[in-house]
Each structure stands twice: as C-alpha cells, then as structure tokens.
C-alpha cells in the first residue's frame, strides 16, 4: 500500500470515489465480459517501481558496473559523460552552479538533469528498465538496471562513487530537489495562477 502525504485526495474526493466504486465490488461483474487475469499474466506486465519501493525487483548493481554499462549501451546517444544530444537525447548528468537552486522558470535554457530536477530515484530505475536502451528497449537485466541507476545517481552527485544499489537502498535515496514539487493549485475561475 502506498501512502504519501503530498498527493492524497481530499476527504470529499476520496469519499465520492469510494461511493462510486461500491456497487461494482459488491455486486460482482455486471456484463461478464473479459476473463480472469492469471497471476503470471499480471507479473509479466507489472514492472512499475514506485517511490515506496513497491515493484522494485531483487538484484543489485554498483556505480563501477554502471559506468562500464553506460559506455557500452548509453553513451552513443547520451554522450560519454551523460551530457546528452538534445532535444532527442536529453542530458542526464549535470550539477553546475547555474542549474542549482531550481531556477528553471527564469530561463528555459538552463538544463534540467537527473541531479538538479528529478524528484524520485525510483523513477530512474522504472524508466530505464521499461524504455532503455533506445535501440533495444526493455532488454536490461535487473542487476544492469540497478548498476546504471547507481552510476547516473553518482554522476549527478546524489550517491557516493563507491555505492551499490538494491531495492532497499534505492528507495532510501533522497533526491536533492524532491521537496520542490507541489500539487496543482489551479482550479479555474478568474484568478490566474
């Protein structure tokens, strides 16, 4: 069960959803269409990894292993240091002074990277596992994914250069600017936000 304070629904909204769902759950299927999903079918597709560690698989990887993997499988698009080839292949690494302190609304030319922008380290694992490397998406093992995640976090000065990541350690990584992300406060009406 995931519960993070920032984005839970309001009490009113949650109650409305609960009321709406009650009928379906209690009464059973109405149309008897579709078929039961087997646990194996669910497991084959259910690869999402969330900030609370839900979905992070067994395995581990070191920064050093990730460095070698990055050069072999990622550098041809993202550059040897993760500097990117924008816009198709964004910069991944970068903690220069210009990009620190979350100044992005002041100038769109300031490069956003994993280190100076991304709020959650688990996002990196989830995305790399499902979508990378570009020429062979979804081909990395769990160990390789942990290793690449570790190298990218170390290159962005988020974890030490001798770190090894596994599920427990990855979910404990706090990204530098996690607290800068806020819920949408626009609700229509005359006030411009």
């Amino acid at each position, binding site marked *: 069960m995931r519960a993070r304070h920032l984005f839970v629904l309001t009490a009113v909204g949650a109650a409305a959803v609960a009321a709406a769902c009650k009928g379906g759950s209690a009464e059973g299927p109405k149309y008897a269409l579709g078929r039961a999903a087997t646990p194996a079918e669910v497991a084959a597709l259910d690869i*999402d990894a969330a900030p609370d560690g839900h979905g992070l698989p067994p395995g581990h990887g070191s920064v050093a292993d990730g460095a070698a993997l990055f050069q072999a499988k990622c550098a041809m698009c993202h550059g040897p240091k993760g500097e990117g080839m924008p816009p198709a292949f964004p910069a991944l690494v970068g903690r220069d002074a210009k990009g620190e302190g979350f*100044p992005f609304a002041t100038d769109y030319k300031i490069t956003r990277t994993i280190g100076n922008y991304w*709020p959650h380290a688990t996002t990196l694992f989830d995305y790399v596992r499902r*979508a990378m490397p570009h020429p062979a*998406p979804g081909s990395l093992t769990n160990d390789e994914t942990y290793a690449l995640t570790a190298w990218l976090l170390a290159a962005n000065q988020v974890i030490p250069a001798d770190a090894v990541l596994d599920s427990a350690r990855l979910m404990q990584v706090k990204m530098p600017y996690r607290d800068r992300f806020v819920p*949408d406060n626009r609700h*229509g009406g005359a006030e411009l936000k």
Partner: protein
Amino acid sequence: MTTRRELLAGAAGLLGGAMLAGATTAHAAQQGAAAAPPPDVPPDATKLQGAPTSAVGSRSPFVTPARTPVGEVTGSSLTPLHELTGTITPADLHFERHHAGIPKIDPARHTLLIHGLVARPLVFTLADIKRFPQVTRTHFVECSGNGRAAYRDPKPEMTAQKVCGLFGNSEWTGVPLRTLLEEAGAKPAATWFLAEGGDACVMTRSIPMAKAMDDALVVWAQNGEPIRPEQGFPLRLLLPGFEGNANVKWLRRLELGTAPWMTRWETSKYTDPLPDGTARQFSFELDARSIITSPTVPQQIAKGTWPVSGLAWSGRGVIKRVEVSTDGGTTWHDAELQGTPLPKAAVRFTHQWEWDGRDATLLSRAIDETGYVQPTRTALMKVRGPGTDFHFNHIVGWRVTPDGHIAFHGET
C-alpha cells in the same frame, strides 16, 4: 492524346498557375521541397467523363494540407490549423506526439489488463471492450507543450500550425472507463490508477481515480473509424480536458493503487517550473484558450470584408464567450459561436471584419464556464516565468499591414 496533353498543360499554365503560385510557394518553403507541378485538370470538366469510384477517397490535388515536421522518431508533428475549418480535425492531419515511435499492433492480439486494487483482475480483448455499452463524444486532445515556441520566442513568420498545432478535436467512440473498473470491482481504497501504453517506452501516467469515475473513456474509434496507429490503435485512454500525454495511447494495462507512481512523464517531464522555485506536478487540466486560424500567415488579404475565424476550448468545461479585437486589444467584440459549445471540446468562432486597409492587430480571447479569462503572454509570464515548460495558453494574434501582409503577433 498528344493534343489533349498539350491542351491540359496550356490550361494549367493559364488557370492554375496564377492561382496556385502563392500557396505552392509557401508550402514549398515550409516543406523545404521543390514546388510540385500544377495539378492535371481539363479546361472544362463538363466536357469529359469524370473519374470512377475508388476504395479510399483523396483530397483535391489543389488541397494539400500537411502535418509538419515529418520523420520525427521521438517527437511530434503539428496539425495544420490554418488550413482547416469547422471543429473536427481530420484524423490523418491530427497532430502526433510519441516518445518512442508508433508501434505496430495486431488488434487480435491486443489486450487490456486491469489489476491492482480490484476484486477481480481482468483481461479484456478488443472484441470484449466493444461489447460494453458505448458512448460517442466530441473532445479535444492538446499537448500541454502546445505553444511553447510561440511563448518563448515568437517570430513573425509563425503559422497557426507552428503556434498552436499540438491540438486536435475529434469525435471519439468507446466505453466509459468507470464501466470497465466497476466490472473488475475497483476497491474503494483505490485513489490513483496507472495507465500504461504498449509502445517501445511502455509509457505510463498516474491519474486520480476521481477522473476515472467522472468522464474518462477507453476509446477505439475516432471520427467514425478505428483510431489510427499514430493516435493509439487499437485502444487509447481519453481523459477529456487533461493534457495530451495523460491520454495514454496503445493502452494495454491499468493498475489501481493508493498513490501516484511518479513515472518519468509526471516528474522529469510534464511538470511546470514556477518563479517561486517550485514545480507544479499533476497539472492535468488545460486552461481555456483560443486562436484565430483565418486570416493568418501565410495569407495575403485585400481591403474589405473578412470573417475572422478561429477555435476556442477549455479543459474545464464549456466555452462561454470568445472576444475578438482588431485593434490589438483596445476594443473587444463578442464573436459568434458556431453551434452549441460542448464541454471540453473545440468551438468555432467568427467575427465579420471590415478591413479599411490600415494597420490592424487581430486577437482572440476565450472565457470559460468557470469565469477563467485567457491571459496575455505578459500576464502568464508574470505568474509562470519565462522558463516554465508546459501550459502556454496565452492570447496570440496576427498583425496586418496596409500591404495586406499578415505576421504572427505573439507579444501580447
């Protein structure tokens, strides 16, 4: 035959050449390609039999709207808004945005899995989904990056396509998402769901359950035919009024949970940096917006009467009013709305304008049912900053000079 060919070539030179010169030049410049020869038409179409029936229709050779740019593997193409009328976007001209190309999917093998906080995890085939009670609704889809180039760096040569072309409005057919989730027995504890696509990046977004229980749809048809591959064939999520990216295409999986998953597309991308050093996250709703699509770049106009026509929409409901100014915002006129505006759908507006041949600046401003008024670029930049990355719904317009030349006017 030789005689006829000569005749046709001559006619094309006399009639077609002059008419087409302007459009062809503009089109060639835009495409970066050589100008095509004039279409092959007889001097008098009433004097010979016409073409037979065909399997699939095509546009007149004189009409060549095109998405641009083409060939983007992880990018987007833009709807040619300046070449369209009415409110429905032809499906083959609807903008494209994908993060890993357009997948090839066999509909017979495609399934939708619903699992997580449900009483009964279910797998639906496309055939199963088509047997549920159906709805057909008109809604727009707009990328929340729409208008970025015009916000950051407006240029006089920009067309409505370039300014606002990450937008389309279609008639969608499908099943309410609520119906599918109730069939699976969604548990009251579920407050968010994850939608996943079957493309090469297996794209995922977290969406509040409240939207699922409100007006979300799982659709398989667009404008009377199966959704095209670039729009999500065979199934896509349709979240009326929500930013385009959340309308997950090639939909293959829905997982119900209690918090957002924080996927790449709701953290690294599709978040809005603000001047106070924060970034707005899960900014789903698209605020009210309008754009004049005619007369615009690259049209050349003459003195006299012109319908100033465009599109308006709001992700928060119905457009209540659209105002048009022809003097750069000093005075505003209520535009006529064509037909009854629908919620979270485009409405066409017009304002008949008598141009006296002097400098003019055409602007439009939308007001929606919540009382939201489309802001100027200056006002939006004040609250969002020049570097913000999504949701650019500011007022834009067109400057007309006495020679009839039209240029984009972005600095409102």
